[in-house]
C-alpha cells in the first residue's frame, strides 16, 4: 500500500491500464510531454510512447470524434477534456453520438470510451472552468457518469470505467486532486460502476452526496455527532446509473434524508435522487427530504465562490431541519 493523492491514484490507474492492453490510448490537449495541466498523465508518454499517449490539436469536438472513430477501429480511447466547462464544445460527440451508437446499431457495437475531465469549484479557476455539468450528461441516455470522492475510489472506479464497453464520463473534482492522501493498494483492483458507498453508518439521518460534497458531509457529520445526531453518509460514486438499492435501504433505516450536490439547485443529479426516493420509499420518510445545492445562477466569479458553494454548515442546517421536523 502507498499513500497517494487522488491525482496520483488516477495516474496509477491509467498506467496500469496502458500496460494491460495496448489498444488503450490516451489523448487530449497537453496530455503528452506536459502530462496534462494537472499532471494526471505525467510520465505516461515517456513510458508508453507517443503512439499511445499524445497531444491533440486544440479542438474538443475533434477529440470526441477521434474517440468514436478509434473505437470503431478496435481501440479503447481515454480522452481528456482539459476542463469540464469546455463540455459544450464536445457535447455532440458525447451526448449526441457516442451515447447512441450501441442503440442505433442494434447492440452490435461497443463504444469503450472513457472521457476524463476535471471539474468542480473552490479553486479559483477562471470563468467556465469549474461548472458542475454532470447533470447534463446524466440526462443523456447511453452514458455512465462516475464521480469519485477519494483516491482509493478514484483508482478502482477509473480502472472499471476504462474496462467498461460503454462510454463513461469520469469526472475528477479539482479540489480533491491534491487536498489529502490516503492508502491506495498497489496493482489493479476495481470498484463496480453503479454501486454507492456507505462512507459512515448512522441511525438518525442519511446524507447522500457525491464528489467534493462527500468531504463536506463528513465534516458536517462530525459537527452533528457532538450535538448527538448520528448521520449516515452515502457517497453515490456513480451518478448514472444510480444505486437505487442503497438509496432505499438508507431511507428505510433513518427515515430522514438530506441530498447534497455542488451543482445549482435548478435540476440535475440531486433532483433525480430525491425523485427516486419519493417514488419508491415515501412512506419510510419521517420528514420532507432536504436538498442542499448551489443557488440558481451561473457559476460565479472567482472572488465569490466561497459564498456561493454549498458547505458543511449548510448541511448541518439542513440536517437539523430534517431532524426537528
Amino acid at each position, binding site marked *: 500500500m502507498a499513500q497517494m493523492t487522488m491525482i496520483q491514484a488516477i495516474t496509477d490507474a491509467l498506467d496500469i491500464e496502458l500496460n494491460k492492453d495496448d489498444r488503450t490510448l490516451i489523448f487530449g490537449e497537453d496530455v*503528452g510531454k506536459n502530462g496534462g495541466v494537472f499532471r494526471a498523465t505525467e510520465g505516461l508518454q515517456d513510458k508508453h510512447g507517443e503512439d499511445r499517449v499524445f497531444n491533440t490539436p486544440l479542438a474538443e469536438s475533434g477529440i470526441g470524434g477521434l474517440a468514436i472513430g478509434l473505437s470503431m477501429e478496435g481501440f479503447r480511447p481515454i480522452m481528456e477534456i482539459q476542463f469540464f466547462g469546455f463540455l459544450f464544445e464536445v457535447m455532440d460527440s458525447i451526448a449526441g453520438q457516442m451515447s447512441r451508437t450501441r442503440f442505433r446499431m442494434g447492440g452490435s457495437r461497443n463504444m469503450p470510451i472513457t472521457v476524463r475531465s476535471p471539474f468542480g469549484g473552490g479553486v479559483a479557476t*477562471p470563468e467556465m472552468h469549474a461548472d458542475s455539468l454532470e447533470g447534463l450528461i446524466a440526462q443523456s441516455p447511453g452514458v455512465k457518469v462516475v464521480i469519485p470522492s477519494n483516491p482509493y475510489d478514484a483508482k478502482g472506479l477509473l480502472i472499471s470505467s476504462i474496462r467498461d464497453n460503454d462510454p463513461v464520463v469520469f469526472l475528477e473534482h479539482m479540489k480533491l486532486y491534491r487536498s489529502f492522501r490516503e492508502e491506495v493498494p498497489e496493482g489493479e483492483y476495481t470498484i463496480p460502476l453503479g454501486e454507492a458507498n456507505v462512507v459512515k453508518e448512522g441511525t438518525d439521518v442519511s446524507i447522500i452526496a457525491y464528489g467534493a460534497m462527500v468531504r463536506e458531509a463528513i465534516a458536517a457529520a462530525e459537527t452533528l455527532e457532538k450535538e448527538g445526531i448520528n448521520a449516515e453518509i452515502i457517497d453515490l460514486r456513480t451518478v448514472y446509473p444510480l444505486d437505487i438499492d442503497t438509496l432505499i435501504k438508507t431511507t428505510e433505516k433513518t427515515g430522514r434524508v438530506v441530498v447534497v450536490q455542488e451543482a445549482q439547485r435548478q435540476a440535475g443529479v440531486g433532483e433525480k435522487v430525491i425523485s427516486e426516493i419519493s417514488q419508491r420509499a415515501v412512506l419510510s420518510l419521517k420528514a420532507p427530504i432536504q436538498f442542499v445545492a448551489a*443557488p440558481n445562477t*451561473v457559476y460565479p466569479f*472567482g472572488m465569490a465562490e466561497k459564498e456561493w458553494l454549498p458547505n458543511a454548515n449548510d448541511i448541518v442546517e439542513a440536517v437539523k431541519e430534517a431532524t426537528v421536523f
Partner: protein
Amino acid sequence: MVKKETQTIEALLDANNFDFSTVKVLDESGKIVNEALMPELSDEELVDFMEKMVFYREWNERMFALSRQGRLGFVAPTAGQEASQLGTVLATTSDDVLFPGYRDLPQLMEHGLPRHKAFLWSKGHVDGSTYPEDFRAYPPQIIIGAQYVQAAGAALGIKKNGRKAIAMTWTGDGGSSQGDFYEGINYAGAYKAPAVFVIQNNGWAISTPRESQTAAPTLAQKAVAAGIPGIQVDGMDILAVYAVTKAAREFAIEGNGPVLIETLCYRYGAHSLSGDDPKRYQPEGAQEHWRGLDPLNRFRIFLTEKGLWTEEREEEVVAQAKEEAKQAIQDAEAAPKQKVSDFLKNMFEEADQITQEQIEQYEAKENK
C-alpha cells in the same frame, strides 16, 4: 504511340500551394525593409506606439509581481506580443467592436477599459466585466473559438446597421484549430461582413507547439477555404502589424468582407501564471531566438536613430506604468464584496418564483 506524361501527385498539389510569405516593414536591427508598406504616421504617433509597448511590457511585470503577492487571480502573460496586440488594436477606433481572448486585456484597455477593471477581471469580480453601454467590447473570452463566431455576428450586425466599423477578434495558433474558428471566418465571408480576424501565432498553445496544431504551413492560408484574404505578418514588427490591420479594416469597411491576419510572435512567459512551466516543454534557445526579434528593441533603435526616443523617456513611461498599476490594484481591492443575491437578480430580467425565494434567502444571510 505517344507516351503519356505521368502526372505526379506532387505536381498536382504544387498548383495549390499559395504564397503566404511574411509581411515585414521593420527588421530586428531597426531598419525599414519595406518602404512601400511604411504606414503614414506622424512623429507623435510613432512615439505613442513605443510608449504603449513600453507601458504594457512593464504592466506585464506588474502583473507578475501582484500575482506573486496573491493579489491577482488568472493572469496570462503578454510580453513578446506587444506589437501584435497593439499594432492590431491601434488600427481600430472606438466605433469598432472588440471580441478579445483571455490574453487580450491590453487591447481592451486601449479601447477604454479602466485599468482597475482589468485587474478585477483577473481576480474574478463581476465589476471587471461590467461595461458601460457605449463601450463596444465583450469581456475576454475563455472558451477558445467562441469569440470568432460572435465577431462574425457582430460584423453582420454592423453591416445591417450601416455603420462604418468592423468587429475585431483575436485567438491563438491553438485557437485556429477550433471548429468555431472556421465557422466564424466562413460565416463572415459568406455574408461579406466587416470583420478582422486575428490569429496571434505565438508558437504555443499551452505545451502544444504550433506544428502539432495543423499540417498547414501557415495559419493565414486557412482564409483560402473561406474565400477571404489571409495575410501573415511579422508580429514582432508593430509597423507591419499596424499597416496590415489598417488596410484590412479599410477593405472590410468598404464592403469587401472579412480579412484573416496571422501575426507571428512569441509568448516569452508561461502560458498563464497558474502553475504552467514552459521549461517542461519549450526547447532550449527558443526564448533567446525570439528575444533577438523583440518588438520593443527594434522600434527603440528605429526611433532613437530618428531622434524621437531617449532612455529618459522610457524610464518615465516605465514609472508611469508602475504608478498606474499601483493605483489600479488599489481601486480593484476597494471594490465592494460581491453578493449572491445580486447574481440571482442578474439572472433574468424578472426573477421566477424559485429565484425570488433564493434572493430572499441570500439577502437574509447577507444582512445578518
